[in-house]
């Protein structure tokens, strides 16, 4: 049986809260952890997780290859990082005492802190203020086997506009922090593709500090890896900031793909929109999606919405989808969330097959359509095309007769 678990707020929920005037109403939610949780650059401040913590309860710790308990020692040459950038963009490595390293926020879990405590030099990509990049910055991270701890800072100067594409391929055990420092009025689009081989382990915290009137658009695409656990976080540095967080994932048999998002509305008149969609197939394919949105008392005028949709293509796959919305002020524009997990719709399959389309192809068409809906929202034609190509390649390789 396909197993769908949903949790406090309930998964197959669809909710929209226009204005909530009673902060206490949400106190029953378990994870006020957000306010009080440990945040530190030092791994020693975090106890080794044992798996029952709210934060870790879905993650198969025994498959993290020691990233969580200090036993994973960095090995040289574990990953190869290449950066190509248009002229005018500064690409360099900096020491950990550089002011920009850690500027977006502290690590909030043991593995992120381990990465922060263990990396050598931090990668820096700096886009000067007012720059309008015509080409994306490309960062390729190729795993060559072994353990690595990484740190990457992407700094976008005021009123600059840039697209950054980060691609992960190969095999590695990687823990990393990525920081996006987005200047006032700047626009940054980041596409992070996890196209690992199926033995890789990847745990990372992505923290964006969105400046005044700045726009941050994130597209996370996770297809490969044995365990991938990403923690995209958004913090606003000034009013008028906008964050759009999109995600696509496809979990095959045995894969654990976990996306935990946190949007911290700590500043008035900011906007956030989260939309993640995933498909799963095969025995013990497991996807976890946690969407935490906190609207603090001072964040008047906030407008936020988050959505997670999952499509179970076969029995034996499992989804945990947990939207959490915590609202401490009633003076907001809107706040809502929706989460739904459904099985592959046999009526869609019948309809397509009744038009002569073989079952495999029909299945691919439906899943492609499921993702395409989201890709269409991203709004960058050249990226859309590449993403659809990636999705097609993934579906071609994985959605076949075996899925019936």
């Amino acid at each position, binding site marked *: 049986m396909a197993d769908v678990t949903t949790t406090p707020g309930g998964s197959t929920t669809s909710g929209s809260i226009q204005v909530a005037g009673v902060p206490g109403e949400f106190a029953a939610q378990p994870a006020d952890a957000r306010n009080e949780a440990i945040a530190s650059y030092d791994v020693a401040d975090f106890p080794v997780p044992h798996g029952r913590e709210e934060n870790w309860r879905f993650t198969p710790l025994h498959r993290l290859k020691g990233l969580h308990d200090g036993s994973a020692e960095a090995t040289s040459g574990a990953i190869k990082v290449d950066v190509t950038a248009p002229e005018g963009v500064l690409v360099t490595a900096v020491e950990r005492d550089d002011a920009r390293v850690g500027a977006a926020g502290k690590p909030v879990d043991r593995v992120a802190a381990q990465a922060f405590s263990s990396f050598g030099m931090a990668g820096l990509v700096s886009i000067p203020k007012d720059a309008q990049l015509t080409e994306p910055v490309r960062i390729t991270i190729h795993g060559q086997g072994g353990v690595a701890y990484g740190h990457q800072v992407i700094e976008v100067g005021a009123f600059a506009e840039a697209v950054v594409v980060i691609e992960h391929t190969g095999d590695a055990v990687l823990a990393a922090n990525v920081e996006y420092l987005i200047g006032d009025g700047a626009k940054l689009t980041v596409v992070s593709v996890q196209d690992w081989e199926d033995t890789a382990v990847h745990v990372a915290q992505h923290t964006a500090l969105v400046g005044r009137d700045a726009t941050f658009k994130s597209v996370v695409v996770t297809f490969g890896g044995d365990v991938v656990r990403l923690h995209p976080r958004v913090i606003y540095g000034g009013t008028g900031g906008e964050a759009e967080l999109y995600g696509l994932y496809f979990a095959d048999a045995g894969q654990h793909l976990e996306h935990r998002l946190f949007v911290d509305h700590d500043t008035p008149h900011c906007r956030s929109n989260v939309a993640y969609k995933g498909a799963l197939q095969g025995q013990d394919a497991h996807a976890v999606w946690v969407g935490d949105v906190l609207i603090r008392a001072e964040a008047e005028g906030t407008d936020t919405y988050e959505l997670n949709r999952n499509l179970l293509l076969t029995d034996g796959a499992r989804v945990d989808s947990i939207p959490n919305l915590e609202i401490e002020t009633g003076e907001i524009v809107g706040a809502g969330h929706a989460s739904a997990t459904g099985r592959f719709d046999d009526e869609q399959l019948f309809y397509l*097959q009744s*038009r*002569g*389309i073989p079952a495999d192809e029909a299945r691919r*068409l439906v899943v492609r359509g499921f993702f395409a*809906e989201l890709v269409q929202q991203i709004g960058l034609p050249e990226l859309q095309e590449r993403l659809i190509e990636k999705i097609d390649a993934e579906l071609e390789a994985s959605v076949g007769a075996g899925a019936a």
Partner: protein
Amino acid sequence: MATLEIRDLHVSVEAENGPREILKGVDLVVKQGETHAIMGPNGSGKSTLAYSLAGHPKYTITSGAVLLDGEDVLAMTVDERARAGVFLAMQYPVEVPGVSVSNFLRTSATAIRGEAPKLRTWVKEVKEAMAGLQMDPAFAERNVNEGFSGGEKKRHEILQMELLKPKIAILDETDSGLDVDALRVVSEGVNRVRETGEVGTLLITHYTRILRYIKPDFVHVFAGGKIVASGGPELADQLEENGYEQYVKGGAAE
């Protein structure tokens, strides 16, 4: 000449208290070029017949045979039946989010024809068929059946019939929910295909209204899971006047 033969077809569905028989021995022969209207009250099993022929997994064939030119249709998968030339225009076509009409039509035509249609002639073909059904060209970029009105869904079904050129077309209550204008446009589409003489049509309907636009060669009254009377177009006129009452006495129509 393509011939669809339905012999003593019995079909059940899973109900709460075990399987329930809906079709109780249907016999019918439909030849290419012919149009058969199947008329019956609600719940008589008309739609079950349509979906069983197309191979919907909800229905279990318990006995009988369906042959298309001697080939065993019941042994074919749903897509094999379509490729063999069976087409079902559905009463409630389903939405397929994220799949555009143009992509869907081309994928389907490629499957049915065995090769991808040449792009240039294909575009023209689709355009003309859409124009014939008074469909806005922008329609092709919408997602399949998503947000379509009742009339748009039916036009889209008949558009597929025109493009896929089946040997046997089953139209399941294509007239339901259509206003007079839409009914006329949709019927004209069906007639264009019929006029080729290449299609055998099984027109399933509750009302005689559509028969003013699509003239059947044969009319069958369906009640209680089988055909209880057959005749020419005059039978439809009788039904128009007297309704189904005489056929459903004694609860035969369930």
